[in-house]
């Protein structure tokens, strides 16, 4: 594992080059360009606000609902974009994989990197919202760094599994978007985590995304620290999955060129 990570560090320039490529290509020949990165969470926020705040009157714990949902949609969109592009990253680069040698894990990681940039752009909009609603920013916001780091490790772990499994089983291409959609409902994007029944709570918080999103919301707009035992669980789960996923990817990588 250490050996692989060292090699990966040696390929950082390739990772940067491929990330740049992914960003450039994604918005090439589109009129709105990078504005699409913002429109996605923004439009969901509007829909959610209308449906869940105006129609259904979901409790948003004293925070204006648009802010409440955007604070979750930000890390959620990062997750969903990374997964939907990253899962296909290896098969979408089949000509590269079958004709040039390079550490293949840079492909899913480049998708992750490109999504991280989108996340940064929407983050600026989010800050604008925070000031607009005159929400008090506190020093708790510094927690976003470990929280996002946890999310990155977790996404990378999933991508190692997904991007290699998609090569073996193309059916996954259709399963992944479906699962991502369902996954959003097992994550406190629309509703506060406090509405999850107590007896489900332990199971519920095994999902690192649930903790990442709840923590992100707490530290950005509620001025509260994350629940440390829960964040700790998320970190442990993510790191374990990352190690397993990376090993799995490296094992399957050898047959990519023959199957793809």
């Amino acid at each position, binding site marked *: 594992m250490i050996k692989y990570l060292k090699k990966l560090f040696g*390929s950082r*320039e*390739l990772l*940067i*080059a*491929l990330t740049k*490529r992914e960003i*450039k*290509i994604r918005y*090439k*020949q589109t009129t709105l360009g990078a504005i699409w990165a913002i429109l996605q969470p923004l439009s969901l926020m509007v829909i959610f606000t209308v449906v869940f705040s105006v129609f259904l009157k979901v409790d948003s714990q004293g925070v204006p609902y648009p802010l409440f949902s955007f604070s979750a949609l930000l890390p959620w969109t990062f997750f969903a974009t990374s997964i939907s592009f990253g899962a296909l990253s290896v098969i979408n680069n089949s*000509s*590269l*994989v*079958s*004709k*040039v*040698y*390079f550490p293949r894990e840079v492909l899913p990681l480049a998708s992750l990197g490109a999504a991280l940039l989108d996340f940064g752009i929407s983050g600026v909009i989010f800050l604008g919202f925070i000031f607009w609603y005159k929400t008090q920013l506190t020093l708790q916001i510094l927690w976003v760094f470990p929280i996002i780091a946890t999310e990155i490790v977790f996404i990378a772990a999933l991508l190692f599994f997904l991007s290699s499994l998609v090569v*073996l*089983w*193309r*059916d*996954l291409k259709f399963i992944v978007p479906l699962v991502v959609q369902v996954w959003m409902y097992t994550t406190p994007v629309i509703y506060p985590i406090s509405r999850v029944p107590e007896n489900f709570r332990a199971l519920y918080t095994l999902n690192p995304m649930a903790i990442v999103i709840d923590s992100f919301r707490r530290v950005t707009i509620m001025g509260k620290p994350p629940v440390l035992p829960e964040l700790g669980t998320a970190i442990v789960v993510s790191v374990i999955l990352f190690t397993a996923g990376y090993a799995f990817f490296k094992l399957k990588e*050898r*047959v990519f*060129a*023959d*199957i793809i």
Partner: protein
Amino acid sequence: MKNIAIEFKNVSKSYSISRHKYRRITDDISLAFKKVLTKEQRSLVDEKFYALKNVSFQVDGGMNLGIIGKNGAGKSTILKLISKITYPDSGNINVNGRIGAFIELGAGLHPELSGRENIYLYGAILGMKKREVDEKFRDIVKFSELEKFLDTPIKRYSSGMYARLGFSVVSFMNPDILLIDEVLAVGDKNFQEKCLLKMEEFAKGSKSIVFISHNLDAIKKICNWVILLDRGQIKASGKPEKVISSYLSNYADKNL
């Protein structure tokens, strides 16, 4: 002391030629059940085609190896194994040194990006540092003769221009081992000559070339050792003139 650049020891490589190109989830699940229920070990995708069978050879530093043979003899598979794109079923492969492979036209180039962007991207894919590309950028562009089209998306390039761009980047990455697979088929006479000159220049040094071509004159010019492959096995190896003439007398007439 002779240093070994590439060593193949009893290398075999097969490809599955089953009915389904891709495995399906249902295949794997039913197979798993079968294994549990009947203890059957046979896999569903067992039909195999051997691209290479027990191939052994060695390339010393400074040696320029040519590989000739009919289509499907396993030539390209050897290059893919050397560059670690694919792995052998059995046998050992040792490679020492930085590899520069030009295996297929346009692999690694992205049609939406400009020539300039592609030079950096392709350089990075081949393992060059950005600084390295910066230093060599002018030489690469000059060699490729694409100065005018540097900021055009390469989807507007002709296939000859693709080849020029790709070959130029590979030849300036300064590898220890250069792998070339039949690139001279594209590009005009002028550029072919230029590539050959560049390769000859490279061939004179202490570095190694593995060169696949149906152009036997080019092989004679560049290589000092030739392997003749037939259906995944080495039929002959030795000095270029000797192997090429035996190839011509034994195979070419049957081929035609």
